[in-house]
Protein backbone atom coordinates (compact mmCIF):
# COMPACT_ATOMS: atom_id res chain seq x y z
CA UNK A 1 0.00 0.00 0.00
CA UNK A 2 1.37 3.46 -0.81
CA UNK A 3 2.87 5.19 2.19
CA UNK A 4 0.56 8.22 2.33
CA UNK A 5 -2.54 6.03 2.39
CA UNK A 6 -1.33 3.46 4.90
CA UNK A 7 0.00 6.15 7.25
CA UNK A 8 -3.33 7.98 7.33
CA UNK A 9 -5.52 4.92 6.91
CA UNK A 10 -7.19 5.32 10.31
CA UNK A 11 -8.72 8.68 9.56
CA UNK A 12 -9.21 7.87 5.87
CA UNK A 13 -11.67 5.07 6.64
CA UNK A 14 -13.99 7.47 8.44
CA UNK A 15 -13.49 10.30 5.94
CA UNK A 16 -14.08 8.01 2.95
CA UNK A 17 -17.31 6.67 4.42
CA UNK A 18 -18.54 10.16 5.35
CA UNK A 19 -17.90 11.55 1.89
CA UNK A 20 -19.47 8.51 0.22
CA UNK A 21 -22.50 9.07 2.42
CA UNK A 22 -22.97 12.61 1.19
CA UNK A 23 -22.53 11.90 -2.51
CA UNK A 24 -25.15 9.14 -2.47
CA UNK A 25 -28.21 11.33 -3.27
CA UNK A 26 -26.25 13.03 -6.05
CA UNK A 27 -25.01 9.75 -7.48
CA UNK A 28 -28.52 8.33 -7.67
CA UNK A 29 -29.57 11.41 -9.65
CA UNK A 30 -26.89 11.10 -12.33
CA UNK A 31 -26.46 7.31 -12.51
CA UNK A 32 -28.69 4.25 -12.19
CA UNK A 33 -29.73 3.46 -8.63
CA UNK A 34 -27.89 0.15 -8.61
CA UNK A 35 -24.64 1.91 -9.45
CA UNK A 36 -24.93 3.98 -6.26
CA UNK A 37 -25.77 0.90 -4.23
CA UNK A 38 -22.86 -1.02 -5.69
CA UNK A 39 -20.55 1.91 -4.96
CA UNK A 40 -21.74 2.03 -1.33
CA UNK A 41 -21.19 -1.71 -0.86
CA UNK A 42 -17.78 -1.38 -2.50
CA UNK A 43 -16.78 1.41 -0.10
CA UNK A 44 -17.89 -0.71 2.87
CA UNK A 45 -15.81 -3.61 1.59
CA UNK A 46 -12.89 -1.21 1.20
CA UNK A 47 -13.38 -0.01 4.78
CA UNK A 48 -13.38 -3.65 5.89
CA UNK A 49 -10.10 -4.35 4.11
CA UNK A 50 -8.68 -1.18 5.65
CA UNK A 51 -9.78 -2.44 9.06
CA UNK A 52 -8.15 -5.81 8.45
CA UNK A 53 -4.92 -4.10 7.36
CA UNK A 54 -4.91 -1.91 10.49
CA UNK A 55 -5.67 -4.89 12.74
CA UNK A 56 -2.75 -6.82 11.23
CA UNK A 57 -0.50 -3.81 11.69
CA UNK A 58 -1.61 -3.52 15.35
CA UNK A 59 -1.11 -7.23 16.03
CA UNK A 60 2.41 -7.18 14.61
CA UNK A 61 3.74 -3.75 15.56
CA UNK A 62 1.62 -2.85 18.58
CA UNK A 63 -0.82 0.01 19.21
CA UNK A 64 -0.10 3.50 17.93
CA UNK A 65 -1.71 6.94 18.04
CA UNK A 66 -2.55 9.23 15.16
CA UNK A 67 -2.73 13.01 15.51
CA UNK A 68 -5.48 14.33 13.25
CA UNK A 69 -4.25 17.20 11.10
CA UNK A 70 -0.75 16.85 12.53
CA UNK A 71 -1.66 18.62 15.78
CA UNK A 72 -0.25 16.72 18.78
CA UNK A 73 -2.42 15.51 21.62
CA UNK A 74 -3.45 18.24 24.06
CA UNK A 75 -4.32 20.61 21.18
CA UNK A 76 -5.45 18.31 18.42
CA UNK A 77 -7.70 15.30 18.40
CA UNK A 78 -5.89 12.04 18.89
CA UNK A 79 -6.99 8.71 17.45
CA UNK A 80 -5.74 5.73 19.39
CA UNK A 81 -5.32 2.65 17.24
CA UNK A 82 -5.14 -0.42 19.45
CA UNK A 83 -6.54 -3.94 19.35
CA UNK A 84 -9.97 -2.61 20.41
CA UNK A 85 -10.16 -0.40 17.33
CA UNK A 86 -8.85 -3.16 15.07
CA UNK A 87 -11.41 -5.66 16.31
CA UNK A 88 -14.29 -3.19 16.13
CA UNK A 89 -13.38 -1.99 12.63
CA UNK A 90 -13.36 -5.62 11.47
CA UNK A 91 -16.69 -6.27 13.19
CA UNK A 92 -18.34 -3.24 11.61
CA UNK A 93 -17.02 -3.96 8.12
CA UNK A 94 -17.72 -7.67 8.27
CA UNK A 95 -21.35 -7.16 9.26
CA UNK A 96 -22.31 -3.90 7.55
CA UNK A 97 -21.17 -5.02 4.08
CA UNK A 98 -23.52 -8.03 3.76
CA UNK A 99 -26.37 -6.05 5.35
CA UNK A 100 -26.11 -3.33 2.71
CA UNK A 101 -25.73 -5.98 0.00
CA UNK A 102 -28.95 -7.57 1.25
CA UNK A 103 -30.70 -4.20 1.46
CA UNK A 104 -29.69 -3.21 -2.07
CA UNK A 105 -32.04 -5.70 -3.74
CA UNK A 106 -35.34 -4.03 -3.06
CA UNK A 107 -34.51 -0.96 -1.09
CA UNK A 108 -36.66 1.34 -3.23
CA UNK A 109 -39.73 -0.82 -2.64
CA UNK A 110 -39.01 -1.11 1.10
CA UNK A 111 -38.70 2.58 1.87
CA UNK A 112 -41.20 3.96 -0.62
CA UNK A 113 -39.40 5.99 -3.25
CA UNK A 114 -36.10 6.44 -5.04
CA UNK A 115 -35.08 9.64 -3.30
CA UNK A 116 -35.93 8.18 0.11
CA UNK A 117 -33.81 5.14 -0.75
CA UNK A 118 -30.90 7.42 -1.65
CA UNK A 119 -31.16 9.15 1.72
CA UNK A 120 -31.36 5.75 3.39
CA UNK A 121 -27.97 4.91 1.87
CA UNK A 122 -26.63 8.22 3.21
CA UNK A 123 -27.87 7.48 6.72
CA UNK A 124 -26.58 3.92 6.62
CA UNK A 125 -23.08 5.04 5.62
CA UNK A 126 -23.15 7.85 8.19
CA UNK A 127 -23.98 5.31 10.87
CA UNK A 128 -21.14 3.04 9.76
CA UNK A 129 -18.72 5.98 9.66
CA UNK A 130 -19.74 7.06 13.16
CA UNK A 131 -19.27 3.51 14.48
CA UNK A 132 -15.80 3.29 12.91
CA UNK A 133 -15.08 6.68 14.48
CA UNK A 134 -16.14 5.40 17.91
CA UNK A 135 -13.82 2.45 17.44
CA UNK A 136 -10.70 4.47 16.73
CA UNK A 137 -11.12 7.64 18.76
CA UNK A 138 -9.01 8.48 21.79
CA UNK A 139 -10.75 11.66 22.78
CA UNK A 140 -13.97 12.37 24.68
CA UNK A 141 -14.90 15.29 22.42
CA UNK A 142 -14.74 12.94 19.46
CA UNK A 143 -16.71 10.28 21.32
CA UNK A 144 -19.50 12.79 21.95
CA UNK A 145 -19.65 13.85 18.29
CA UNK A 146 -19.58 10.28 16.99
CA UNK A 147 -22.21 9.16 19.52
CA UNK A 148 -24.51 11.95 18.34
CA UNK A 149 -23.98 11.16 14.66
CA UNK A 150 -24.70 7.50 15.34
CA UNK A 151 -27.79 8.34 17.40
CA UNK A 152 -29.39 10.64 14.86
CA UNK A 153 -28.54 8.34 11.94
CA UNK A 154 -29.94 5.28 13.67
CA UNK A 155 -33.13 7.11 14.66
CA UNK A 156 -33.66 8.22 11.08
CA UNK A 157 -32.96 4.69 9.81
CA UNK A 158 -35.82 3.36 11.96
CA UNK A 159 -38.15 5.94 10.39
CA UNK A 160 -37.07 4.92 6.87
CA UNK A 161 -40.24 2.89 6.55
CA UNK A 162 -42.92 5.50 6.22
CA UNK A 163 -45.63 4.11 8.49
CA UNK A 164 -47.25 5.18 11.73
CA UNK A 165 -45.79 2.45 13.96
CA UNK A 166 -42.21 3.03 12.78
CA UNK A 167 -42.45 6.82 13.19
CA UNK A 168 -43.85 6.47 16.68
CA UNK A 169 -41.11 4.00 17.62
CA UNK A 170 -38.55 6.45 16.23
CA UNK A 171 -39.88 9.30 18.34
CA UNK A 172 -39.70 7.19 21.49
CA UNK A 173 -36.17 6.08 20.57
CA UNK A 174 -35.09 9.65 19.84
CA UNK A 175 -36.41 10.97 23.17
CA UNK A 176 -34.70 8.27 25.25
CA UNK A 177 -31.50 8.36 23.21
CA UNK A 178 -31.32 12.13 23.70
CA UNK A 179 -31.72 11.70 27.45
CA UNK A 180 -28.85 9.24 27.15
CA UNK A 181 -26.75 11.78 25.27
CA UNK A 182 -27.53 14.35 27.93
CA UNK A 183 -26.19 12.04 30.63
CA UNK A 184 -23.10 11.21 28.58
CA UNK A 185 -22.41 14.91 28.02
CA UNK A 186 -22.86 15.58 31.73
CA UNK A 187 -20.41 12.77 32.47
CA UNK A 188 -17.89 14.24 30.03
CA UNK A 189 -18.42 17.61 31.71
CA UNK A 190 -17.65 16.12 35.13
CA UNK A 191 -14.49 14.43 33.83
CA UNK A 192 -13.46 17.75 32.29
CA UNK A 193 -14.07 19.61 35.55
CA UNK A 194 -12.12 16.98 37.50
CA UNK A 195 -9.13 16.72 35.17
CA UNK A 196 -9.17 19.69 32.79
CA UNK A 197 -8.72 17.43 29.78
CA UNK A 198 -10.81 15.70 27.16
CA UNK A 199 -8.06 13.44 25.85
CA UNK A 200 -8.44 10.02 27.42
CA UNK A 201 -4.75 9.31 27.96
CA UNK A 202 -4.32 12.65 29.77
CA UNK A 203 -7.47 12.04 31.86
CA UNK A 204 -6.07 8.66 32.89
CA UNK A 205 -2.78 10.25 34.02
CA UNK A 206 -4.57 13.00 35.93
CA UNK A 207 -7.01 10.63 37.65
CA UNK A 208 -4.49 8.00 38.69
CA UNK A 209 -2.53 10.73 40.46
CA UNK A 210 -5.36 12.31 42.37
CA UNK A 211 -8.65 10.41 42.23
CA UNK A 212 -8.57 9.70 45.97
CA UNK A 213 -9.26 13.40 46.61
CA UNK A 214 -12.70 13.25 45.02
CA UNK A 215 -14.04 9.67 44.97
CA UNK A 216 -17.69 10.83 45.22
CA UNK A 217 -17.43 13.12 42.23
CA UNK A 218 -15.84 10.36 40.16
CA UNK A 219 -18.49 7.93 41.28
CA UNK A 220 -21.29 10.33 40.25
CA UNK A 221 -19.58 10.94 36.94
CA UNK A 222 -19.26 7.20 36.20
CA UNK A 223 -22.91 6.62 37.02
CA UNK A 224 -23.84 9.36 34.51
CA UNK A 225 -21.86 7.47 31.87
CA UNK A 226 -23.46 4.19 32.91
CA UNK A 227 -26.99 5.59 32.59
CA UNK A 228 -26.23 7.44 29.37
CA UNK A 229 -24.58 4.60 27.50
CA UNK A 230 -26.91 2.13 29.22
CA UNK A 231 -29.97 3.78 27.67
CA UNK A 232 -28.33 3.86 24.25
CA UNK A 233 -27.11 0.27 24.34
CA UNK A 234 -30.37 -1.05 25.85
CA UNK A 235 -29.04 -2.32 29.17
CA UNK A 236 -31.93 -4.17 30.83
CA UNK A 237 -34.06 -1.75 32.85
CA UNK A 238 -33.34 0.97 30.25
CA UNK A 239 -34.20 -1.13 27.19
CA UNK A 240 -37.84 -0.02 26.76
CA UNK A 241 -37.28 1.70 23.41
CA UNK A 242 -35.51 -1.23 21.75
CA UNK A 243 -38.27 -3.76 20.98
CA UNK A 244 -40.47 -1.19 19.22
CA UNK A 245 -37.66 0.47 17.31
CA UNK A 246 -35.92 -2.72 16.21
CA UNK A 247 -39.04 -4.65 15.27
CA UNK A 248 -40.82 -1.90 13.31
CA UNK A 249 -37.88 -0.93 11.07
CA UNK A 250 -37.19 -2.62 7.72
CA UNK A 251 -35.10 -5.80 7.95
CA UNK A 252 -31.68 -4.34 7.04
CA UNK A 253 -32.21 -1.45 9.49
CA UNK A 254 -33.15 -3.85 12.27
CA UNK A 255 -30.08 -5.95 11.50
CA UNK A 256 -27.84 -2.89 11.50
CA UNK A 257 -29.26 -1.41 14.70
CA UNK A 258 -29.44 -4.62 16.67
CA UNK A 259 -26.05 -5.92 15.64
CA UNK A 260 -23.83 -2.85 15.33
CA UNK A 261 -25.37 0.42 16.51
CA UNK A 262 -25.72 -0.59 20.16
CA UNK A 263 -22.20 -2.08 20.14
CA UNK A 264 -20.70 1.29 19.27
CA UNK A 265 -21.99 2.73 22.53
CA UNK A 266 -20.65 -0.28 24.43
CA UNK A 267 -17.20 0.32 22.91
CA UNK A 268 -17.47 3.97 23.97
CA UNK A 269 -18.44 2.88 27.50
CA UNK A 270 -15.47 0.48 27.61
CA UNK A 271 -13.13 3.23 26.48
CA UNK A 272 -14.40 5.70 29.07
CA UNK A 273 -14.34 3.17 31.91
CA UNK A 274 -11.14 1.30 31.19
CA UNK A 275 -9.02 3.72 29.13
CA UNK A 276 -9.99 7.17 30.45
CA UNK A 277 -10.62 6.25 34.08
CA UNK A 278 -8.35 3.24 34.13
CA UNK A 279 -8.71 -0.40 35.09
CA UNK A 280 -7.28 -0.17 38.61
CA UNK A 281 -9.66 2.65 39.61
CA UNK A 282 -12.70 0.99 38.00
CA UNK A 283 -12.12 -2.36 39.64
CA UNK A 284 -11.80 -0.68 43.03
CA UNK A 285 -15.17 1.08 42.72
CA UNK A 286 -18.42 -0.88 43.17
CA UNK A 287 -19.43 -0.01 39.59
CA UNK A 288 -18.17 -3.34 38.23
CA UNK A 289 -20.42 -5.22 40.65
CA UNK A 290 -23.36 -3.13 39.45
CA UNK A 291 -22.51 -3.99 35.84
CA UNK A 292 -22.31 -7.70 36.69
CA UNK A 293 -25.68 -7.67 38.42
CA UNK A 294 -27.34 -5.64 35.64
CA UNK A 295 -25.82 -7.97 33.04
CA UNK A 296 -27.19 -11.06 34.78
CA UNK A 297 -30.63 -9.45 35.17
CA UNK A 298 -30.60 -8.52 31.48
CA UNK A 299 -29.68 -12.05 30.37
CA UNK A 300 -32.58 -13.62 32.24
CA UNK A 301 -35.20 -10.89 31.84
CA UNK A 302 -34.50 -10.33 28.12
CA UNK A 303 -34.77 -14.05 27.44
CA UNK A 304 -38.02 -14.35 29.40
CA UNK A 305 -39.53 -11.39 27.51
CA UNK A 306 -38.38 -12.97 24.24
CA UNK A 307 -40.13 -16.22 25.14
CA UNK A 308 -43.41 -14.36 25.51
CA UNK A 309 -43.35 -12.85 22.00
CA UNK A 310 -45.10 -14.48 19.09
CA UNK A 311 -43.94 -11.97 16.49
CA UNK A 312 -40.60 -13.17 15.13
CA UNK A 313 -38.88 -9.78 14.88
CA UNK A 314 -40.01 -8.76 18.39
CA UNK A 315 -38.63 -12.04 19.74
CA UNK A 316 -35.29 -11.33 18.09
CA UNK A 317 -35.34 -7.76 19.44
CA UNK A 318 -35.82 -8.98 23.03
CA UNK A 319 -33.11 -11.55 22.40
CA UNK A 320 -30.78 -8.59 21.78
CA UNK A 321 -31.61 -7.27 25.27
CA UNK A 322 -30.56 -10.65 26.65
CA UNK A 323 -27.35 -10.84 24.61
CA UNK A 324 -26.34 -7.29 25.58
CA UNK A 325 -26.50 -8.65 29.13
CA UNK A 326 -23.69 -11.10 28.28
CA UNK A 327 -21.55 -8.22 27.04
CA UNK A 328 -22.14 -6.17 30.20
CA UNK A 329 -21.53 -9.21 32.39
CA UNK A 330 -18.10 -9.54 30.77
CA UNK A 331 -17.37 -5.86 31.39
CA UNK A 332 -18.39 -6.27 35.01
CA UNK A 333 -16.18 -9.32 35.54
CA UNK A 334 -13.24 -7.08 34.76
CA UNK A 335 -10.66 -9.83 34.25
CA UNK A 336 -8.87 -10.86 31.10
CA UNK A 337 -11.13 -13.78 30.18
CA UNK A 338 -14.29 -11.81 30.90
CA UNK A 339 -13.24 -8.89 28.72
CA UNK A 340 -12.05 -11.24 25.97
CA UNK A 341 -15.51 -12.78 26.13
CA UNK A 342 -17.03 -9.29 25.87
CA UNK A 343 -15.07 -8.48 22.72
CA UNK A 344 -15.74 -11.89 21.18
CA UNK A 345 -19.43 -11.53 21.97
CA UNK A 346 -19.54 -8.08 20.37
CA UNK A 347 -18.26 -9.69 17.15
CA UNK A 348 -20.18 -12.93 17.43
CA UNK A 349 -23.49 -11.33 18.37
CA UNK A 350 -23.11 -8.76 15.59
CA UNK A 351 -22.74 -11.50 12.95
CA UNK A 352 -25.40 -13.76 14.50
CA UNK A 353 -28.12 -11.22 15.17
CA UNK A 354 -27.76 -9.53 11.79
CA UNK A 355 -28.07 -12.96 10.14
CA UNK A 356 -31.18 -13.76 12.17
CA UNK A 357 -32.82 -10.41 11.38
CA UNK A 358 -32.03 -10.69 7.66
CA UNK A 359 -33.42 -14.23 7.55
CA UNK A 360 -36.52 -13.11 9.47
CA UNK A 361 -36.96 -10.25 7.01
CA UNK A 362 -36.70 -12.70 4.11
CA UNK A 363 -39.30 -15.03 5.65
CA UNK A 364 -41.71 -12.18 6.39
CA UNK A 365 -41.30 -10.72 2.92
CA UNK A 366 -41.81 -14.00 1.03
CA UNK A 367 -44.61 -15.50 3.11
CA UNK A 368 -46.26 -12.36 4.47
CA UNK A 369 -46.40 -14.02 7.89
CA UNK A 370 -44.76 -12.27 10.83
CA UNK A 371 -45.94 -14.52 13.66
CA UNK A 372 -44.07 -17.67 14.66
CA UNK A 373 -47.31 -19.59 15.17
CA UNK A 374 -48.16 -19.11 11.48
CA UNK A 375 -44.81 -20.31 10.18
CA UNK A 376 -45.59 -24.01 9.93
CA UNK A 377 -43.58 -25.67 7.19
CA UNK A 378 -41.71 -22.58 5.96
CA UNK A 379 -38.53 -24.65 6.00
CA UNK A 380 -39.74 -26.74 3.08
CA UNK A 381 -40.42 -23.67 0.99
CA UNK A 382 -37.31 -21.63 1.86
CA UNK A 383 -34.66 -24.21 2.83
CA UNK A 384 -31.63 -21.91 2.44
CA UNK A 385 -33.10 -19.04 4.47
CA UNK A 386 -34.22 -21.34 7.26
CA UNK A 387 -30.88 -23.16 7.03
CA UNK A 388 -28.94 -19.98 7.77
CA UNK A 389 -31.53 -19.15 10.43
CA UNK A 390 -30.62 -22.48 12.04
CA UNK A 391 -26.92 -21.56 11.93
CA UNK A 392 -27.72 -18.25 13.61
CA UNK A 393 -29.89 -19.93 16.25
CA UNK A 394 -27.22 -22.48 17.13
CA UNK A 395 -24.61 -19.74 17.39
CA UNK A 396 -26.92 -17.67 19.59
CA UNK A 397 -27.47 -20.64 21.90
CA UNK A 398 -23.74 -21.26 22.08
CA UNK A 399 -23.28 -24.67 20.46
CA UNK A 400 -19.62 -25.62 19.85
CA UNK A 401 -18.28 -24.94 16.31
CA UNK A 402 -20.38 -21.76 16.13
CA UNK A 403 -19.08 -18.34 17.08
CA UNK A 404 -21.44 -17.92 20.05
CA UNK A 405 -19.69 -20.79 21.80
CA UNK A 406 -16.28 -19.10 21.70
CA UNK A 407 -17.53 -15.94 23.40
CA UNK A 408 -19.70 -17.70 25.96
CA UNK A 409 -16.83 -20.05 26.82
CA UNK A 410 -14.56 -17.08 27.54
CA UNK A 411 -17.28 -15.48 29.68
CA UNK A 412 -17.67 -18.76 31.55
CA UNK A 413 -13.92 -18.93 32.19
CA UNK A 414 -14.04 -15.32 33.37
CA UNK A 415 -16.83 -16.02 35.86
CA UNK A 416 -15.00 -19.07 37.18
CA UNK A 417 -11.79 -17.07 37.57
CA UNK A 418 -13.74 -14.50 39.60
CA UNK A 419 -15.35 -17.26 41.65
CA UNK A 420 -18.75 -15.91 40.65
CA UNK A 421 -20.79 -19.12 40.47
CA UNK A 422 -24.10 -17.30 40.18
CA UNK A 423 -22.83 -15.82 36.92
CA UNK A 424 -21.96 -19.34 35.71
CA UNK A 425 -25.51 -20.50 36.41
CA UNK A 426 -26.96 -17.41 34.71
CA UNK A 427 -24.75 -17.90 31.63
CA UNK A 428 -25.83 -21.50 31.21
CA UNK A 429 -29.45 -20.62 32.01
CA UNK A 430 -29.38 -17.84 29.42
CA UNK A 431 -28.19 -20.31 26.80
CA UNK A 432 -30.98 -22.72 27.70
CA UNK A 433 -33.52 -19.92 27.47
CA UNK A 434 -32.05 -18.91 24.08
CA UNK A 435 -32.64 -22.48 22.96
CA UNK A 436 -36.20 -22.22 24.29
CA UNK A 437 -37.01 -19.08 22.33
CA UNK A 438 -35.19 -19.87 19.05
CA UNK A 439 -35.64 -23.60 18.53
CA UNK A 440 -39.48 -23.51 18.37
CA UNK A 441 -39.13 -21.41 15.21
CA UNK A 442 -37.06 -24.17 13.59
CA UNK A 443 -39.39 -26.90 14.87
CA UNK A 444 -42.34 -25.04 13.41
CA UNK A 445 -40.54 -24.47 10.12
CA UNK A 446 -39.03 -27.91 9.55
CA UNK A 447 -41.15 -30.43 11.42
CA UNK A 448 -44.66 -29.29 10.66
CA UNK A 449 -46.46 -29.60 7.36
CA UNK A 450 -47.23 -26.34 5.55
CA UNK A 451 -50.86 -25.31 6.03
CA UNK A 452 -51.56 -24.45 2.42
CA UNK A 453 -49.19 -24.83 -0.49
CA UNK A 454 -49.02 -21.28 -1.77
CA UNK A 455 -46.13 -20.73 -4.16
CA UNK A 456 -43.47 -19.39 -1.80
CA UNK A 457 -39.96 -19.10 -3.19
CA UNK A 458 -36.56 -18.10 -1.87
CA UNK A 459 -35.47 -14.47 -1.92
CA UNK A 460 -33.15 -13.06 -4.60
CA UNK A 461 -29.72 -14.66 -5.05
CA UNK A 462 -27.86 -11.57 -3.87
CA UNK A 463 -29.76 -11.68 -0.58
CA UNK A 464 -29.02 -15.38 -0.18
CA UNK A 465 -25.33 -14.68 -0.81
CA UNK A 466 -25.36 -11.96 1.87
CA UNK A 467 -26.92 -14.31 4.40
CA UNK A 468 -24.65 -17.22 3.49
CA UNK A 469 -21.65 -14.93 3.89
CA UNK A 470 -22.69 -14.14 7.48
CA UNK A 471 -23.32 -17.83 8.17
CA UNK A 472 -19.83 -18.68 6.90
CA UNK A 473 -18.37 -15.93 9.11
CA UNK A 474 -20.14 -17.42 12.13
CA UNK A 475 -18.89 -20.94 11.40
CA UNK A 476 -15.36 -19.76 10.58
CA UNK A 477 -15.07 -17.87 13.87
CA UNK A 478 -16.53 -20.86 15.68
CA UNK A 479 -14.17 -23.42 14.15
CA UNK A 480 -10.98 -21.37 13.74
CA UNK A 481 -11.16 -18.56 16.29
CA UNK A 482 -7.31 -18.24 16.30
CA UNK A 483 -6.46 -14.76 15.03
CA UNK A 484 -9.72 -13.13 16.08
CA UNK A 485 -9.44 -14.56 19.58
CA UNK A 486 -5.85 -13.34 19.76
CA UNK A 487 -7.02 -9.86 18.75
CA UNK A 488 -9.80 -9.97 21.38
CA UNK A 489 -7.33 -11.09 24.04
CA UNK A 490 -5.01 -8.29 23.12
CA UNK A 491 -7.90 -5.82 23.27
CA UNK A 492 -8.77 -7.08 26.76
CA UNK A 493 -5.14 -6.84 27.81
CA UNK A 494 -4.99 -3.26 26.51
CA UNK A 495 -8.01 -2.32 28.62
CA UNK A 496 -6.56 -3.88 31.75
CA UNK A 497 -3.17 -2.27 31.11
CA UNK A 498 -1.46 -5.66 31.11
CA UNK A 499 1.55 -6.62 29.09
CA UNK A 500 0.34 -7.91 25.75
CA UNK A 501 0.62 -11.69 25.64
CA UNK A 502 2.02 -12.70 22.31
Amino acid at each position, binding site marked *: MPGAISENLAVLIVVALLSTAYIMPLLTKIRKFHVAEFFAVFMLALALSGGVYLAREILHNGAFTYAVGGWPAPWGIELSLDAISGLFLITVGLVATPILLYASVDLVKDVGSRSRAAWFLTLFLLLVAALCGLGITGDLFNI*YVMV*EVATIASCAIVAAR*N*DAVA*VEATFKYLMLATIGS*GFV*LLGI*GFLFVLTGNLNMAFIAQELSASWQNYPTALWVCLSFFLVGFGVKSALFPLHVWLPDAHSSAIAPSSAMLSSLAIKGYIIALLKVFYVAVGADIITRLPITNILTVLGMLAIIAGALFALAQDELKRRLAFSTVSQVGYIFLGIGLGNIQGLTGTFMHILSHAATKSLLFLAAGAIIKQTGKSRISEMAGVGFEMPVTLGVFAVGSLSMIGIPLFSGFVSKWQLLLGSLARGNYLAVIVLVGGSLLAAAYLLPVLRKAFFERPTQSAAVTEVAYVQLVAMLFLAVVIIMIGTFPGVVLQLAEQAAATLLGLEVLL
Partner: protein
Amino acid sequence: MGELWSRILQNYPYVFALALFAIGIYTILTHSNLFKKVIGINIMEGSTYILFIAAGNIRGGVAPILDMGDPELVYVHPLPQALMLTGIVVSVSVTALSLALIMKLYRFYGTVDAKEIMKIRSEVRANAGRNQ
Protein backbone atom coordinates in the same frame (compact mmCIF):
# COMPACT_ATOMS: atom_id res chain seq x y z
CA MET B 1 -23.84 21.92 57.56
CA GLY B 2 -22.38 25.38 57.19
CA GLU B 3 -19.41 24.05 55.26
CA LEU B 4 -21.67 22.17 52.87
CA TRP B 5 -23.69 25.32 52.16
CA SER B 6 -20.61 27.40 51.51
CA ARG B 7 -19.32 24.75 49.08
CA ILE B 8 -22.65 24.72 47.27
CA LEU B 9 -22.64 28.51 47.08
CA GLN B 10 -19.10 28.48 45.73
CA ASN B 11 -20.08 26.06 42.98
CA TYR B 12 -23.46 27.59 42.23
CA PRO B 13 -23.20 27.35 38.41
CA TYR B 14 -22.83 23.56 38.64
CA VAL B 15 -25.74 23.22 41.05
CA PHE B 16 -27.83 25.43 38.80
CA ALA B 17 -26.90 23.32 35.75
CA LEU B 18 -27.81 20.07 37.51
CA ALA B 19 -31.14 21.49 38.67
CA LEU B 20 -31.92 22.60 35.13
CA PHE B 21 -30.94 19.16 33.84
CA ALA B 22 -33.38 17.55 36.27
CA ILE B 23 -36.14 19.94 35.19
CA GLY B 24 -35.49 19.05 31.55
CA ILE B 25 -35.67 15.31 32.18
CA TYR B 26 -38.79 15.75 34.30
CA THR B 27 -40.43 17.65 31.44
CA ILE B 28 -39.54 14.96 28.89
CA LEU B 29 -40.76 12.10 31.02
CA THR B 30 -43.94 13.54 32.52
CA HIS B 31 -45.55 15.60 29.76
CA SER B 32 -47.58 13.71 27.21
CA ASN B 33 -47.61 16.60 24.73
CA LEU B 34 -44.86 15.84 22.23
CA PHE B 35 -43.93 19.52 21.76
CA LYS B 36 -43.37 19.85 25.50
CA LYS B 37 -41.04 16.86 25.34
CA VAL B 38 -38.97 18.67 22.71
CA ILE B 39 -38.89 21.76 24.93
CA GLY B 40 -37.68 19.51 27.75
CA ILE B 41 -34.84 18.25 25.56
CA ASN B 42 -33.76 21.80 24.85
CA ILE B 43 -33.80 22.69 28.55
CA MET B 44 -31.75 19.59 29.34
CA GLU B 45 -29.15 20.33 26.69
CA GLY B 46 -29.06 23.98 27.71
CA SER B 47 -28.08 22.93 31.22
CA THR B 48 -25.00 21.12 29.91
CA TYR B 49 -23.89 24.30 28.13
CA ILE B 50 -23.94 26.13 31.45
CA LEU B 51 -21.94 23.36 33.10
CA PHE B 52 -19.22 23.36 30.46
CA ILE B 53 -18.93 27.11 30.03
CA ALA B 54 -18.75 27.56 33.81
CA ALA B 55 -16.05 24.90 33.97
CA GLY B 56 -13.91 26.64 31.37
CA ASN B 57 -14.43 30.18 32.62
CA ILE B 58 -11.94 32.21 34.60
CA ARG B 59 -13.12 35.42 36.22
CA GLY B 60 -11.54 38.32 34.39
CA GLY B 61 -10.39 36.08 31.55
CA VAL B 62 -10.63 37.19 27.95
CA ALA B 63 -11.39 35.33 24.75
CA PRO B 64 -8.55 32.94 23.90
CA ILE B 65 -6.97 34.90 21.07
CA LEU B 66 -3.24 35.11 21.74
CA ASP B 67 -2.05 38.69 22.36
CA MET B 68 1.75 38.77 22.36
CA GLY B 69 1.84 42.40 23.52
CA ASP B 70 0.25 41.74 26.89
CA PRO B 71 1.74 38.77 28.82
CA GLU B 72 -0.45 39.51 31.85
CA LEU B 73 -3.69 38.55 30.09
CA VAL B 74 -5.64 35.56 31.42
CA TYR B 75 -7.49 33.50 28.84
CA VAL B 76 -10.59 31.36 29.35
CA HIS B 77 -10.38 27.70 28.32
CA PRO B 78 -11.37 27.41 24.63
CA LEU B 79 -12.02 23.65 24.65
CA PRO B 80 -15.41 23.65 26.43
CA GLN B 81 -16.56 26.49 24.20
CA ALA B 82 -15.70 24.48 21.09
CA LEU B 83 -17.45 21.45 22.55
CA MET B 84 -20.53 23.50 23.33
CA LEU B 85 -20.68 24.91 19.81
CA THR B 86 -20.85 21.30 18.68
CA GLY B 87 -23.43 20.64 21.37
CA ILE B 88 -25.60 23.49 20.09
CA VAL B 89 -25.41 22.10 16.55
CA VAL B 90 -26.39 18.67 17.83
CA SER B 91 -29.29 20.00 19.85
CA VAL B 92 -30.59 21.97 16.86
CA SER B 93 -30.43 18.82 14.70
CA VAL B 94 -32.20 16.73 17.31
CA THR B 95 -34.88 19.41 17.65
CA ALA B 96 -35.34 19.55 13.88
CA LEU B 97 -35.55 15.77 13.59
CA SER B 98 -38.04 15.47 16.43
CA LEU B 99 -40.22 18.28 15.04
CA ALA B 100 -40.26 16.53 11.67
CA LEU B 101 -41.30 13.31 13.39
CA ILE B 102 -44.04 15.13 15.31
CA MET B 103 -45.36 16.48 12.02
CA LYS B 104 -45.50 12.96 10.61
CA LEU B 105 -47.15 11.63 13.75
CA TYR B 106 -49.77 14.39 13.48
CA ARG B 107 -50.50 13.36 9.89
CA PHE B 108 -50.85 9.72 10.88
CA TYR B 109 -52.80 10.08 14.12
CA GLY B 110 -54.30 13.58 14.05
CA THR B 111 -52.94 14.45 17.50
CA VAL B 112 -49.68 15.44 19.18
CA ASP B 113 -50.52 13.86 22.54
CA ALA B 114 -48.59 10.70 23.42
CA LYS B 115 -51.45 9.29 25.52
CA GLU B 116 -54.00 9.69 22.73
CA ILE B 117 -51.60 8.10 20.23
CA MET B 118 -51.27 5.13 22.58
CA LYS B 119 -55.07 4.93 22.82
CA ILE B 120 -55.51 4.99 19.04
CA ARG B 121 -52.82 2.34 18.63
CA SER B 122 -54.36 -0.02 21.14
CA GLU B 123 -57.80 0.41 19.49
CA VAL B 124 -56.27 -0.40 16.10
CA ARG B 125 -54.62 -3.48 17.55
CA ALA B 126 -57.88 -4.60 19.21
CA ASN B 127 -59.76 -4.20 15.91
CA ALA B 128 -57.09 -6.16 14.05
CA GLY B 129 -57.46 -8.94 16.64
CA ARG B 130 -61.23 -9.04 16.17
CA ASN B 131 -60.97 -9.29 12.40
CA GLN B 132 -58.70 -12.31 12.47
